[in-house]
């Protein structure tokens, strides 16, 4: 090491060095093999994950499981080309074999030597559980049992309750031929409650969840088992009396927090640099141009303490940061990883992420949110004569190339003459990414981040993310119901 590492970085790294016998010399040899056929750049990504999950169902602790996996991915870049190989056996000969396989993306004489590493300064955004995975299972069971009790107590029409808790500890070590060297230990936990409500006529479902990067202290207040259980139960009971959602264009008010999934789908994915480098995004070529109303500022921030989408370093060993995507309605920049930054000449925003050692990294979001505005949420609702107020959502999806996106409301109400009236059934909202945010006419002063439940999929790779938003009003959005 050319820099003397911080003590936390040393402990993250020591895990791989001690448990798998990795040495700095071996890392250099592997990178040397990876570049032996003339690649421009190579990196090694070591990952070890341990996970635990517990579930209560019908008041019985029915399930408990744990998993461990470890492996290393070797990547070689040659121009715009990527060679990739991985192994779940971390012995030197298997690592060297993976390096030789990935090396073949290039063809030519070796033009790089690998000498020494420089530690990437690593943040301290989340606690590393002491004692690794000797978990206090009883304390974790108590969380799901409390959730179960609270959900069943909410209303006699709640006929089914399931609660689950899951936790993982992911250790990574990245060593690259450009000298980058980083390691991190990333905790992630999550509590979920699912309920079914039933009356004479129909059954409905409700769910709620919360989590983040940290320990059990996360599950307090709005993330307490009781609160989550009540939210899940309330949502299901509400749906028993829901009317058909309206169909067509109307004014839409989105509540604060998780409805920020709008940003993730409408603009976030379209601003990932890989799509823009290739010219395949609806946002390609729009930097400096208006893509939203002047009230809209959107950032992606990987440096928020304890958040589900946060990372001390990304999966290429680069520091994460806060990146302004849209400022007062004008598109400012894309999310980049090492490859897209190099090919486009843009700065690396520390957005290179991957699902596991078996996956090639690519630009991804972390925590994406809209900054607060000046409007009081009550004023926003009061300003709508007829529209939809949507406060909770299921998943969303976007077609990057034509910009069309959807997100599905799971709790929404009619707004009539400025007042919230009847709850409506599930409905999908649809819009066009580069246009939709131009119709944002009011932005609330109540910015809220989600409770830590988001998972984003891209090219078959899932990574944890966060979203956030204040209450906003869109003057025009299409609501996909069946009613009038």
């Amino acid at each position, binding site marked *: 090491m050319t820099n003397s590492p911080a003590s936390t970085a040393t402990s993250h790294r020591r895990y791989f060095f001690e448990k798998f016998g990795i040495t700095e010399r071996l890392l250099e040899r592997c990178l040397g093999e990876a570049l032996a056929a003339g690649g421009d750049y190579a990196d090694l990504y070591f990952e070890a994950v341990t996970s635990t*999950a*517990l579930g209560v169902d019908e008041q019985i*602790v*029915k*399930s*408990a*499981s*744990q*998993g*461990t*996996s*470890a*492996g290393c991915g070797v990547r070689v870049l040659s121009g*715009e080309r*990527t*060679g*990739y190989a*991985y192994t*779940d056996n971390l012995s030197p000969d298997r690592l060297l074999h993976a390096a*030789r*396989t990935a090396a*073949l*993306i290039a063809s030519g004489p070796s033009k790089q030597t690998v000498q020494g590493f420089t530690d990437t300064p690593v943040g301290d955004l989340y606690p590393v559980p002491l004692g690794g995975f000797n978990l206090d299972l009883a304390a974790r069971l108590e969380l799901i049992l409390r959730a179960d009790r609270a959900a069943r107590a909410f209303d006699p029409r709640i006929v089914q309750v399931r609660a689950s808790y899951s936790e993982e500890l992911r250790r990574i070590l990245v060593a690259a031929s450009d000298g980058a060297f980083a390691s991190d230990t990333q905790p992630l936990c999550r509590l979920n409650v699912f309920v*079914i409500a*039933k009356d004479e006529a129909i*059954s409905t479902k409700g769910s709620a969840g919360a989590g983040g990067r940290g320990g059990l202290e996360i599950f307090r207040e709005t993330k307490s088992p009781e609160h989550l259980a009540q939210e899940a139960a309330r949502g299901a009971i509400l*749906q028993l009396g829901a009317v058909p*959602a309206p*169909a*067509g*264009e109307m004014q839409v008010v989105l509540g604060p927090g998780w409805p920020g999934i709008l940003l993730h789908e409408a603009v976030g994915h379209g601003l990932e640099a890989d799509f823009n480098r*290739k010219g*395949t995004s*609806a946002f390609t070529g729009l930097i400096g141009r208006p893509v939203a109303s002047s009230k809209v500022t959107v950032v992606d921030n990987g440096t928020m303490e304890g958040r589900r989408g946060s990372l001390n370093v990304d999966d290429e060993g680069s520091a994460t940061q806060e990146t302004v995507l849209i400022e007062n309605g004008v598109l400012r920049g894309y999310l980049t990883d090492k490859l897209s930054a190099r090919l486009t000449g843009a700065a690396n925003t520390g957005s290179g992420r991957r699902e596991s050692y*078996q996956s090639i990294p690519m630009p991804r979001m972390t925590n994406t949110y809209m900054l607060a505005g000046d409007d009081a949420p009550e004023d926003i609702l009061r300003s709508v004569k007829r529209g939809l107020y949507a406060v909770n959502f*299921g*998943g*969303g*999806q*976007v*077609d*990057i*190339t*034509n910009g*069309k*996106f*959807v*997100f*599905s409301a799971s709790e929404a109400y009619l707004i009539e003459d400025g007042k919230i009236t009847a709850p409506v*059934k599930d*409905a*999908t909202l*649809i*819009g*066009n990414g580069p246009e939709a945010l131009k119709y944002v006419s009011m932005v609330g002063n109540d910015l809220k981040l989600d409770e830590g439940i988001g998972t984003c999929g891209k090219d078959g790779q899932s990574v944890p993310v966060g979203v956030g938003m204040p209450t906003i009003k869109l003057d025009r959005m*299409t*609501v*996909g*119901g*069946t009613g009038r």
Partner: protein
Amino acid sequence: MADTVLPAEFTTVDLESLAADIVAQAVKAGASDAEAVAREGDEFSVSVRMGQVETLKESGSRALGLRVFNGKKSASASTSDLTPDGIRQLVEGAMELVKVTEEDLLNGLPEREEFGAIKDDQKLYFDDVYSLPGPERIEWARRCEAAAMAADARITNSDGGDFNAATGRKVLANSRGFLGSYKTSYAGVSAAPIAVDANGAKQRDGWWSSARSFALLESPESVGAEAARRTVRRLGARRVPTQQVPIVFAPEVARSLIGSVFEAASGDAIWRSASFLAGKLGETIAGPNLRIIDDNVMMLPSGVGGFGTSPFDGEGLPSRRTVIVENGVLQTYLLNTYTARKLGMKSTHNASRGLAGTPGVGCGNLFLEPGTLTPEEIIGDIKAGLYVTSLMGFGTNIVTGDYSRGATGLWIENGELTHAVEEITIAGNLREMLKNVTAIGSDLVFRGAVASPTIRIDGMTIAGA
């Protein structure tokens, strides 16, 4: 790189004896019953974009899963560490966890007399998926993209052409005497071209061919040409007004509706009252023209096993064919051992199994039986309507049946396909949608495990401009 031969140590570990040994170790450690799964697989993929190689990936991995029982209590564990030390930790971990779970009276492995596996050669594995030399694999991806790019001058960009291949092996062993394993193979070729219209609006679509044997893949040229046709027809897409019209689902989207029927008829959703089909056994749930089948032993017309064919299910029960809907009447729920016991029924041999956790319910080759009309005849019968070619989002609620999804496709006017349509939703409720299937096409083709011919559904709402 494809010429790289993996060293022998990677393939000689006998996964069957390893799985059986883990079961024995768990029983020795005090488990009243145990079940182990072992998986190994390798993959190769190449992407070519704008004629240049973009990514090459080649690797393999293995993993183990263990479920242990202590009477009516159970727990599970998984690992990628196949060393004796890793296996010891796997067994110890599962045994430790079973201490914290509670008795569930219906929990347990199937009974001994239920186990079994199809003995016939189901033709699931062909080693020809890796027969192409490395440079030719790249060439297949390149040819597929090139065919798409050459098909139309408006195709000016691309998300690439791909060729990939994979093989895998699944092993299941338990303490009640079942030990089975099977190998599978897969090869695929695809293209995703991007077209631009006169106004600069971009559209992307794609097409693919996949098969268990390399010899059965369609040519990269035909796949590329079809990808181009699908992409170019999206150009000039516009919204249509909010209205109710007949909707025709192309096979590639109709199959998701059949998947929803399976999900809603799955035992786990049924015993929880978490399905619009709960309590509907023996009742009419769909139009009299509907016959839906889940056939886990099906052979494709080409003589190889279907994409969902297997010798045994996730609990070691022999795979079989199940008629789910006949003349519109729900014939059975889809069950594994646990959900069958919950409902006082017998397993339909539909257990699915991941590495860790309890078995779920999964389909094999799931399909809607074809009718007699060609897609052109179905479309030709409609004065004004929508032909849907892709769907977006997750707006299918199995509990209530409420359905609301983003859609793109082509407008039908006087029996002909006219302009492209985008940025609209289609909505209804599966209860009514299934009864309002007013036409079924003759065009059933298995491009994956779940398949449907073209279908027409009346009474749904389009939300648009």
